[in-house]
């Protein structure tokens, strides 16, 4: 379940900590003298893509993808993944894990015989975590930012 946001032209929408500075304004109206605006009572904030892509900016980090082991989940080389550290890594979620000295993005599957990190590309094999020291989950992937 990953949210996919397609950014058309503003790369700095990705600075997640700065929620107010990078709003994507979908429409705006000029202030006219004379008549009070009939919309004044319905004043709303513009759409905030940061709020859409993460619930918790404090715990959210970005990382750039280099490999192709998750292309089946639309995570492709060059993409930015959005990682929320405050979410519980439950079975079935895509996670950023640190395994055997390296970071990797895989789908976490908790099975009766242990925890697996599964790729979404037939070229690669699952990693079985059979020792607690072997690896740990750094955060849960909650979105992908792509540029087209």
């Amino acid at each position: 379940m990953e949210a996919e946001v397609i950014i058309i032209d503003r790369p700095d929408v990705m600075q997640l900590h700065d929620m107010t500075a990078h709003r994507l304004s979908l429409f705006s109206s000029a202030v006219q003298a004379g008549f009070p605006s009939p919309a004044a009572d319905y004043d709303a904030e513009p759409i905030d893509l940061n709020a859409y892509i993460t619930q918790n900016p404090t715990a959210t980090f970005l990382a750039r993808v280099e490999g192709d082991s998750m292309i089946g989940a639309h995570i492709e080389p060059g993409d930015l993944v959005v990682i929320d550290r405050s979410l519980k890594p439950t079975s079935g979620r895509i996670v950023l894990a640190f395994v055997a000295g390296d970071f990797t993005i895989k789908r976490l599957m908790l099975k009766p015989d242990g925890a697996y990190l599964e790729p979404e590309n037939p070229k690669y094999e699952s990693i079985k975590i059979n020792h607690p020291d072997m690896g740990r989950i750094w955060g849960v992937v909650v979105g992908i930012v792509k540029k087209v």
Partner: protein
Amino acid sequence: MITTTRFALVDCNSFYVSCERVFRPELEGVPVVVLSNNDGCVIARSNEAKALGIKMGTPYFQLKDLVKREGVEVFSSNYELYGDMSRRVVSTLSQFTPNLEVYSIDECFLDLSHLRPEEVEEYGVKIKKTVQDWTGIPVSVGVAGTKTLAKVANKLAKKRVGANGVLALNEQAEIEEALRETQVGDVWGIGRQHAKRLQQLNVTSAWDLCRMPEGWVKKNMAVTGLRTLLELRGQPCQDLEPEAPDKQNICTSRSFGRALTELKDIEEALSTHTVRCATKLRKQNSCATGVNVFLMTNRFAVTEDIYCNSRTIQLPTPTNSELELLPRALHLLKGMFRPGKRYVKVGIILTGLVPASEVQLDLFSSQNGEKHAKLMDTLDTLRQRFGHQALKYAVQGNHYEKAVKEEKRAPWMLQKQFLSSLYTTSVAGVLNIKT
């Protein structure tokens, strides 16, 4: 003012080292040190580095052999990263109480008055776990009835076996035990001089200090000493300060990346410092009434003349406009500059700060005041958005702090040989993942 009856001190463990480890998990268990600006000396150490006997303030060049032999990981200070991680820690902590004082980049006091005594320990554990989960930064939590006791509790939370980084001092017996375990020199606010003097009087633990007569402490350790004594006895003398008080002076200075001989290079550095300093001034809505500039050669050089100078002028009208401050700072520098010397540091101090709203306009300068204010406002907005390098004065030169090419880097800029990536503040700096 808030009256707090229970304080938690949350302190990040080896904060700068921990920030680096969040993005380099393989460095857990490895000795790590972080160097000061310009890669001068050690300012942060992991426990493994402490165990190797590396002391705070050790110059890097003295460590080179040990670093090689023991595989110590060395980092230049990455304040952009540490600042952002600190903001995340504070933001996480603010989930737990509306009243919080940011005491330093790695320490916060929290108001936990709303809890019942039996809830405190568990709440501390929750705070610790949440900060660790959300930010990756390990913290220690000390809870007690005064700030000074919370500091004591925090130190023991780190040290005591089985404390697991959280310690709450509720009962008098617990407080007494904690004070007996604490050296008098480790008490918050007891300086080295007082600690020495107290030890000569056989006052070695915090508990010994606690039992000294008030009159003696007031006479020999002044009112700040008395405050410490009362706080150790559980009587709060310092409340939470959620808003940092405005500063009276603001200073910006840096050592150069290497010794400089040319006035033009030093002017570049000083004008850049002045712009930074004026930005800080406007951020707290103040104006300066005086400008002080200082310039120095290497104080420890044996083979060269040592030259340090400092000059001050009073401004006709208090100001926070760079257009007013820059020419004056540069004028002061020119007056002090002596050719043929090798300079290592320049700095500016803006003095006698007053609130911008209380500035009495001078009859002759008032016409510019409003124009300057608008211009500075625009500059601040642009720089906040596009960085300080985006808009500069010609005197600041055309060098760039993050330039990759050597010739684009100013000779006065800091050496950062071991700088890690800007993982959280630059899209180009985020972690790269080979999936």
